[in-house]
């Protein structure tokens, strides 16, 4: 999958876009409205902040006060169990809110590039609206992350397979997307012939959209149902 993000091998045509355009719109809408990946990132960030707080200036994980000792450039793993914030007006630590369980590796004091786990009917609010996610999750940062790094600003690849809920509507989700350092949202689209391409949305202006396929990068617009390549424009 990571290879697909780096080197998409599909060739997008008008016929293909006619087939996948609605899927792209739905996936983007679901991801943006439910904001589930930010819920996951928040938990990873809280864990990293905790690690940073427990790491001294020499890079040692200092758990001496807890009776475990100080670990120089520790290697190991973290199993994080988060109770989701729920749909109430105030956050509660209620198992009814669902849980998010994540596994992180530690190597040389850094968080491993891959974080994975699952959400068990994780409920939370997005702009006052009820959202939920239930399913598997994997997040890839491309490289190990130091405890002091702001992960929200790092490029990250998300893979999710489960059920997403927003505003009372649920939908199945099986997608992979990348959020680049500039905030661009890259959605990986897999085609029937097992090739793939990326449909991207610029974060500051989602109307700025485009495709990255084996032929290169070119602009598209889902509303206008057209793409502009160097060789010409096609629509569907």
């Amino acid at each position, binding site marked *: 999958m990571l290879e697909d993000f780096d080197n998409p091998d599909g060739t997008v045509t008008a016929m293909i876009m006619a087939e996948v355009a609605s899927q792209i719109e739905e996936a983007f809408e679901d991801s943006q409205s439910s904001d589930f990946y930010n819920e996951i990132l928040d*938990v990873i960030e*809280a*864990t990293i902040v*905790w690690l940073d707080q427990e790491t001294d200036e020499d890079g040692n*994980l200092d*758990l*001496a*006060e*807890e*009776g*475990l*000792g100080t*670990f120089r450039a*520790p*290697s*190991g*793993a*973290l*199993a*994080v*169990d*988060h*109770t*989701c*914030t729920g749909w109430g007006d105030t*956050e509660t*630590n209620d198992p009814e809110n669902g849980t998010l369980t994540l596994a992180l590796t*530690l190597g040389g004091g850094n968080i491993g590039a891959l974080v994975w786990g699952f959400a068990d009917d994780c409920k939370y609010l997005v702009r006052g609206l009820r959202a939920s996610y239930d399913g598997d999750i994997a997040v890839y940062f491309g490289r190990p992350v130091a405890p002091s790094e702001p992960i929200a600003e790092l490029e990250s690849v998300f893979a999710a397979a489960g059920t997403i809920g927003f505003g009372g509507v649920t939908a199945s989700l099986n997608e992979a997307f990348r959020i680049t350092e500039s905030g661009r949202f890259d959605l990986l689209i897999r085609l029937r012939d097992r090739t793939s391409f990326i449909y991207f949305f610029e974060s500051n202006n989602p109307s700025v959209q485009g495709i990255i396929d084996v032929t290169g990068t070119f602009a598209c617009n889902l509303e206008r149902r057209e793409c502009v390549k160097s060789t010409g424009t096609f629509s569907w």
Partner: protein
Amino acid sequence: MRQVHWHIFLVAVLCAATWARSSSARAYHTDKIRLLDSTAYSLPRRDVRVGLMKISYGIIDQLQISTYTMPWLLGLILEEVAPNLELKSTFYDRRRLALSASFGFVEGAYQDALTKTEVRYLLFIAKLASSVRLNSRLRVHIGGQYTGTDFVGDSEPADTDLRGAAVVYLLQLWGMFEWRLSRVVALTLTLRWVPWASDVLVRGEVAIDPNTGATVGINVEFVDLTNAYAIIPGFVFSWKRANIRVGVGYGNFFIEGFGLVAPASALHNISPEFDVFVRF
């Protein structure tokens, strides 16, 4: 609780003394009175051994029960005794060959004065040993031992948000050559080697925020004990009742019985062995 353990210890010693009075006295190196430590041999039925390091009783000819004294004594000093037990079965003992299997545990706790954390520990030990009588004077003993050690720290909730544990596993092999110079003196040469030792795995449960907890597992390259070894020449003196085992060698310090190993630097590469005991 401490008083209960102390009473148990006293009862064990009294029982040993009682058994001692009811049995006939036995000692000297003979074909029936054989070395017990680092061998496949165990005490004959109703025989007792009371020593500085160990108290043992032969339940039947093929089964011996023992308790190590040091954990009890150290436990009394640390105000938390450490119950421990070992069962050793010489399941095969015919002609020149004897084979044994042993299983044991040590369980205890101590209070870390600095962190006020109570650390509980559990050692579980499994051994296999074989002894071969080459002739009336010479014997060879070889064996292997697996020791698992589990430390659990339980901090007071008011002081900290962490509860942790550490685990380490050790595999030890040994060989001992025994040469009976007389009925009183036996010369021994013991080789011990650790072909594999796990990293120390520290586990802890932490609170990251009010809604998030985590179990932390950290591999600690504390001291690499793989390939730790010791070569220990020694003597076992056996008189009518009393026995002394003494040896000084080179290498790591092996705490016999528990299968634990101290880094060589801890005792400047001196590896001692010592025990005084009586057998009845």
